[in-house]
């Protein structure tokens, strides 16, 4: 795996100078490579992982499982891309198994999401059925465990 991407995927705030120090490479090289990765669309965005549950004003998330009729020319792409355009939708993925698309939706309330599904997703041409799973608690996101546990302690000085 590209070492720069590996570092950035763990920490979007890592600067070219920090990455250069970690890899033992010239800073200018690293900066140029990052620019290339951005320009070519490999790096899409730098995001912050937020534990919303720690805040009073939180969001509601749901996973929708959709059955979709396969289109002759476009397969699942046309429906998937149509769904992806809604700003409420966080992710759209084609999946194997009983359903075809897995869609993550963010809303202010359960009602909000229920209306969104009923009014926007379910009526779409090609969508045969929807099944909405509200997320009740998140334990791990993007490889990060969200439940607070004290860090195990090491002795402060050992030989």
């Amino acid at each position, binding site marked *: 795996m590209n070492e720069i991407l590996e*570092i950035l995927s763990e920490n979007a705030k890592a600067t070219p100078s*920090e990455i250069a*120090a*970690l*890899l*033992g490479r010239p800073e200018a090289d690293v900066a140029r490579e990052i620019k290339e990765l951005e320009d070519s669309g490999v790096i899409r965005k730098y995001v912050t992982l937020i534990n919303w549950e720690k805040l009073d004003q939180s969001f509601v998330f749901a996973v929708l499982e959709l059955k979709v009729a396969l289109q002759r020319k476009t397969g699942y792409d046309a429906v998937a891309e149509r769904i992806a355009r809604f700003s409420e939708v966080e992710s759209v993925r084609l999946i194997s198994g009983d359903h075809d698309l897995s869609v993550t939706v963010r809303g202010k309330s359960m009602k909000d999401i229920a209306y969104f599904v009923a009014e926007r997703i379910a009526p779409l041409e090609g969508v045969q059925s929807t099944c909405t799973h509200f997320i009740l608690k998140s334990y791990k996101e993007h490889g990060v465990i969200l439940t607070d546990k004290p860090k*195990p302690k*090491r*002795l*402060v*000085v*050992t*030989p």
Partner: protein
Amino acid sequence: MKQNLKNLPAWNADAHLNRVVRAMPPSGIRKFFDLVSEMEGAISLGVGEPDFVTPWHVREACIYSLESGNTHYTSNKGMPELRESICDQVRRELKLDYDPGEEILITTGVSEAVDLAFRATLNPGDEAIVPEPCYVAYTPDVALAGGVPRTAPTSLEDEFRVQPEAIVSAITDKTRAVLLSYPNNPTGAIMTHADLEDLADVVVENDLLVISDEVYAKLSYSGSHASFAQLEGMKERTLILNGLSKSHAMTGWRIGYALGDPALVGAMTKVHQYTMLCAPTMAQVAALEAMEKGDEEMLHMRHEYDLRRRLFVSGLNRIGLDCFEPRGAFYAFPSVQSWGLSSEEFAERLLREQKVAVVPGNVFGPSGEGFLRCSYATSREELIEALDRMETFLSGL
């Protein structure tokens, strides 16, 4: 009789101590341990163990084994599956064949293996050569085994690789063994195949046993690790000591092993069976899981140490603490000689003034004077913060 008991001479526990133990000085690390423990907000670069927690699949395998009730002794030598797994790996990686039945012993950490090696091979008055600076246990272990430790100094000039001349200078007619520990704690030095070859003549001419502590072998950052046992004709006279503590972040589990000639390993097994009986069963189960399925996590940890190594060593050189490139373990060993302070003065002032704990090099032997042992087995954020604080400290000198 009752009367006499009232006028007993005072009990003097000291008079009952073994004289070798009584003469043993306390570890130089203790003082820093106490200082750091009392300090809020200190960053410790003084820890000689991984900051990673043992990978979950290893812990989970141990938990499952406990749930299944595997709480009994294992054979003295250790679980056969674990011995086989280790021998398989050694065959793959070092291209050396050891018989899992006769040529391996599972120990309670490499520490026990070092102790057993000296106890099984030294007679009273026999001498063992230990290159220094080195891990703090070797010379006391020689003394506890009734032997006499002789140290062989190493220097920055040779990037702390032991030179044949240094060993020759320490040899007497009583020398029986030489200890090698590369990749090295505290310096991060390694010895390549060619470096080790330079020692082979001295070893053979003086009929020495080589005790090779290779616990940091997996943490080699430039090419694969070389063992003295790989040199032609040297396998028989080498005891390889290794374990999972550093490679698989398993320090607290206490699992090590010794590989060597059946007579040597057999002698160590005798001592082991009368003192330890067997390494803890649950830890052996965990070690087996780590040996069989732990490579990916191990490589991930090694990669992370390597990133930190570059970050930290370049940082030390940037702020004015000259540091040669450590190619193994997770220690940097910068020099403080140009700053006009001894290792201990430097370390103590750095701790008091900037709250960064390092270990003065002289703790590991006289050749460590003028250097600091800094462990980079700590998070990147802490390393960056520690470098900032060290730079501030230097600007005030």
